[in-house]
């Protein structure tokens, strides 16, 4: 089954090719019939998209998003008929889809079409009119040898293709191997969130392009071009390859919420830097929740898009005796390093000499304060929400002379009147830039 998509002549000359890329979302077989027609072979796509009605509906939606408002759709068993029907306005209802799903319906619909719809008939329009041949039915009733002699074999061939009596072959449109596209916005945009409208149009194109190559992307770059400033790049990263425009759009929206444009934008560009072959997702008979690792990847990429690269992290122990250096923060920055289990791969920052067990010592607190808090001292006892009683210690930590962060401390586990267990230390030296000298108590951790 073929869909003919007639586009009313628009202001932009390249819109037909952009629309062809968008249409690749629905079928790999799209033909551009210049200047105003696309033909889509959707016979193999009907089941996937839930029947011709739903497919036509989605096609209309995508065309609206792509900024092509005036379209006309028609279905027919063969491409020539679909094109003829799409170009011809509906006899009764304007902008109504012409449907000719069976050969009989096609015959009925084509019979009433004007003969000038055939491209080979247009040069002979006046003669045909004088002969009283107005519709395709009239033409089909004329004796074939006479028609062939007077108007040429080509007219008969085209008529036969339209009627389904001859082989009707179209060469599919081959998209460019690299996806780079630009969109001139209809107006200047200053708010970053207002770019979403134009970006969605580009994402539809990208989705078609990816679909044609059975590809998925993990990284896209939008560029907002300005008059005086260098262009602003807007990057979207994904945890798993995808070509779903809605998923990309959600991420882009979170990303745009965090971006401040330096000045008004007139053109939006989209480059797909990273496309990799991607299989299709299997549709379950019973709609079930996506597997956990996949939804985790989606969650991470969504949080990453809104909170930025500093929003997600993990901690790892690090072999250093100074408590503030005994861990390393590992930012979850590169989403492409996510494992199949959904979690980021281990960064190899931990040296090999990392002992599996920490050497025996005082227990470490579950919470470490970012900066130690100096404690008051009452009756020679450190004071934090009440006087603190030392319950374990001391553990002397005296190290770090080699990198300028010398630490000379005696650590204790202490408990206050409310039975809160804390980790405190008494500094043995005071740095000159610290207001408190040696002997001051500090709170460094909470046992939680």
């Amino acid at each position, binding site marked *: 089954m073929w869909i003919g998509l007639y586009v009313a002549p628009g202001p932009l000359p390249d819109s037909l090719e952009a629309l062809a890329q968008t249409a690749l979302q629905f079928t790999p077989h799209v033909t551009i019939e210049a200047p105003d027609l696309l033909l889509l072979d959707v016979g193999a796509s009907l089941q996937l998209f839930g029947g011709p009605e739903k497919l036509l509906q989605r096609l209309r939606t995508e065309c609206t998003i792509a900024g092509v408002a005036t379209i006309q759709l028609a279905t027919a068993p063969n491409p020539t008929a679909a094109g003829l029907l799409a170009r011809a306005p509906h006899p009764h209802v304007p902008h109504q889809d012409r449907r000719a799903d069976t050969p009989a319906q096609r015959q009925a619909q084509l019979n009433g079409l004007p003969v000038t719809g055939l491209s080979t008939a247009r040069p002979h329009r006046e003669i045909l009119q004088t002969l009283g041949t107005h519709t395709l039915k009239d033409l089909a009733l004329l004796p074939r040898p006479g028609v062939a002699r007077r108007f040429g074999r080509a007219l008969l061939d085209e008529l036969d293709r339209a009627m389904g009596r001859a082989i009707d072959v179209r060469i599919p449109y081959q998209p460019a191997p690299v996806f780079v596209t630009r969109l001139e916005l209809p107006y200047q945009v200053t708010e970053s969130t207002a770019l979403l409208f134009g970006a969605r149009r580009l994402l539809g194109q990208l989705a078609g392009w990816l679909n044609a190559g059975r590809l998925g992307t993990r990284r896209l770059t939008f560029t907002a071009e300005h008059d005086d400033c260098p262009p602003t790049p807007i990057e979207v990263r994904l945890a798993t390859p995808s070509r779903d425009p809605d998923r990309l759009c959600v991420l882009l929206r979170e990303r745009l919420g965090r971006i401040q444009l330096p000045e008004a934008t007139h053109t939006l560009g989209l480059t797909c830097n990273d496309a990799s072959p991607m299989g299709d997702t299997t549709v379950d008979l019973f709609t079930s929740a996506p597997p956990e690792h996949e939804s985790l990847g989606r969650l991470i990429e969504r949080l990453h898009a809104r909170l930025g690269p500093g929003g997600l992290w993990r901690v790892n*122990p690090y072999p250093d*005796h100074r408590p503030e250096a005994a*861990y390393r923060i590992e930012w979850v920055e590169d989403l492409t390093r996510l494992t199949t289990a959904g979690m980021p791969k281990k960064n190899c920052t931990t040296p090999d000499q990392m002992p599996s067990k920490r050497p025996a010592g005082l227990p470490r607190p579950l*919470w470490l304060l970012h900066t130690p808090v100096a404690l008051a001292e009452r009756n020679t006892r450190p004071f934090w929400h009440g006087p603190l009683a030392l319950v374990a210690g001391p553990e002397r930590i005296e190290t770090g002379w080699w990198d300028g962060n010398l630490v000379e401390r*005696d650590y204790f586990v202490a408990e206050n009147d409310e039975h809160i267990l804390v980790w405190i230390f008494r500094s043995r030296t005071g740095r000159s830039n610290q207001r408190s000298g040696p002997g001051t108590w500090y709170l460094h951790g909470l046992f939680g």
Partner: protein
Amino acid sequence: MLSLPSSSALALPLDRTDPISHLVWRADRTGYAVTPGLPSGFRRLDAELPGGGWPPGTLTELITRDPGMGELRLLIPLLRQLTRSRRVVVMLAPPHMPYAPALADFGIDLDWLLMVQATHAADRLWAIEQTLRSSAFGAMLAWLPSDRTRPEHLRRLQLAAAQARGPSFLLRGLPAQFESSPAPLRLLLQPQAAQRLAVTLLKRRGPVLAQPILIDLPQPEGAVRLREPNAVPTAIRTSVRTPVRTPVRMSRPTPDQSVVLSTLRHAHRPPPSAVH
């Protein structure tokens, strides 16, 4: 002849022999959940929690005066079990730095512990909701912004949590215990002497529990045992003399250090002037 059904079959469906009686929840019984809870690691707590553990798919509020009063050690058995079975634990906006060496000492696989930082309150609530909706986590611990949390936020979060497959904990400050909340399980945590935690069930699906549950907080493996604050002074003296060994430049405490300690132990004695 038509025989009438026996009288026992006509009895009220709440009869014990009736097969559907277990489907009717009576308010004097502890509620049970369709999906059983995840064991908390504390037998006395599990006995009182509906479903026999931390309930998945609902919010659980843990209320403490300040962060760091035992709430994390209460969850350590759960976190250990989840991370070891390769389920992700999300910690949303932790108030301090979760200290990796201590977590590792407790046997938690840090590869499966994901922190989310969200400075703005709106971002944080958004992140909590997104996490709950994704249902991709083994457990979620979220610290709510106390000044920006309104009941309608909590209702939204509770609805979002219904899709989750793991337990979700909201950690809140003390004023929250007097506010109404849609969370079906609310616990007030107060530290007690000797490494214990008093868990008061403010709200649960079941009868009111007046007495708080006392549980022993877990201690890291291989760590030295903590002594009582009022331990015998001789024990302290020996431990001061032979300090715990760390391999790097571990020197013995200076004499004045032990003086300080002994003065701390005997606070009634006037401090010697040599200390400062």
